[in-house]
């Protein structure tokens, strides 16, 4: 276990509405965290801030002892990834979608192929790599999103409502994948969910977001 992400006093408002009001927590690698809370509690906002997609109004996000909340090095940002509830499918093949992060990192072709095949096997899409990604079902799309995140071996993996838009069968499959990658990926996995049972089964720590803070 080692410190990966330390969030302190995170505040964020939209048009005068306070969404986060001093969120603090210390996330460590090798653990799974579930963030619960009612709709509008700020779960997605918290994840988007921590994944450095948005900047907080106040507060600090320390990653590897460096405050990355306002300015950050690309190499540090590339250690953190977020699987959005709407995956954002590129209109290419499933293979190219999964390989996207590796292409950005200029990984060579042979290594890319091996990594993509491994990830596709983990998420059960090995036989669909040549298909156009836009033709996948919702559950398959979500699993492709997971594979896309897995190939870049993140130190911190955020999953925003990973099972919200899929059927029961796909939800179980995704939950199994999350549990499997916990052992192989030495990362802090932080997921937001409404599903109490999923949180109980998959997470080591359950955090509840209320009134803009963890309780």
């Amino acid at each position, binding site marked *: 276990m080692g410190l990966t992400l330390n969030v302190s006093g995170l505040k964020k408002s939209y048009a005068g509405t306070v969404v986060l009001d001093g969120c603090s927590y210390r996330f460590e690698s090798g653990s799974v965290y579930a963030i619960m809370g009612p709709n509008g509690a700020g779960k997605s906002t918290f994840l988007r801030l921590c994944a450095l997609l948005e900047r907080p109004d106040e507060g600090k996000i320390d990653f590897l002892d460096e405050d990355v909340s306002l300015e950050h090095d690309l190499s540090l940002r590339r250690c953190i990834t977020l699987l*959005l509830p709407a995956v954002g499918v590129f209109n290419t093949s499933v293979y190219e979608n999964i390989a996207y992060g590796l292409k950005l990192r200029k990984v060579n072709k042979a290594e890319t192929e091996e990594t993509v095949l491994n990830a596709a096997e983990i998420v059960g899409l090995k036989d669909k790599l040549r298909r156009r990604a836009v033709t996948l079902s919702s559950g398959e799309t979500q699993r492709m999103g997971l594979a896309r995140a897995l190939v870049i071996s993140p130190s911190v993996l955020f999953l925003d409502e990973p099972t919200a838009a899929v059927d029961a069968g796909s939800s179980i499959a995704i939950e199994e994948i999350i549990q499997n990658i916990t052992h192989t990926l030495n990362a802090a996995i932080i997921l937001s969910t409404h599903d109490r049972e999923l949180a109980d089964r998959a997470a080591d720590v359950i955090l509840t977001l209320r009134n803009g803070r963890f309780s």
Partner: protein
Amino acid sequence: MDLIIEGIRKASLLIYTLDAELMGIVLLSLKVSLTALSVGAILGVPAGALICLKNRFPLRHFVLNILNTAMGLPPVVVGLFLYLMLSRRGPLGFMGILYTAPAMIIAQSILAFPIVASLSYAAIGSVPPIIRQAALTLGATSYQSAMAIVKEARYGIISGVMAAFGRLSAEVGAVLIVGGNIAGRTRVITSAIVLETDKGDFSQAIALGIVLLGISFCVNIALYFFSRRGNAAGYRYWV
């Protein structure tokens, strides 16, 4: 009616035998229009992307209005403007390119640029923001995420380029003014049709018309193909 039937018969023969004069005109037309299209696309696609993707682009709406207006630029006005610029007494008269293919290419590039830029802007703007966010979450820089958006918009952009080609290949006003319709040098399909009709040589005019329609048909087939590919992606962008 007999005149038309006889014209079509002779025109078919000219096309079938690959008449040298006819082929020369067709090839020059394609050369001029495709070169102008390339210039328009090389400048227009990045311009459309820049206007759409750059945060705080100055006077965005004003520039867009100019581009949209320029999409409907009358070719004869472009031809007249360019003629005045390139004529001996004009500011660019020293170049000595009036009544040459390069002058026609410049005229058609001016016509192609706003079409490509404006339609590229529309195509890039229709890509959902989730694509950019997905790219960023996977470690893309701002530039790389912008390129991901442009790549997603590729079918729309290609459709825009094809639409511009459709306009260029059918355009007559500008090329006639700055090209001069000189046989073997600046005579293209449209200007040749005007001339042959004036001369009463309908078979040559009809043959050129058939070729022009064929080009237009191919462009439309390509447009249909690319718009279908784009739509196929569109329905799942949000997933």
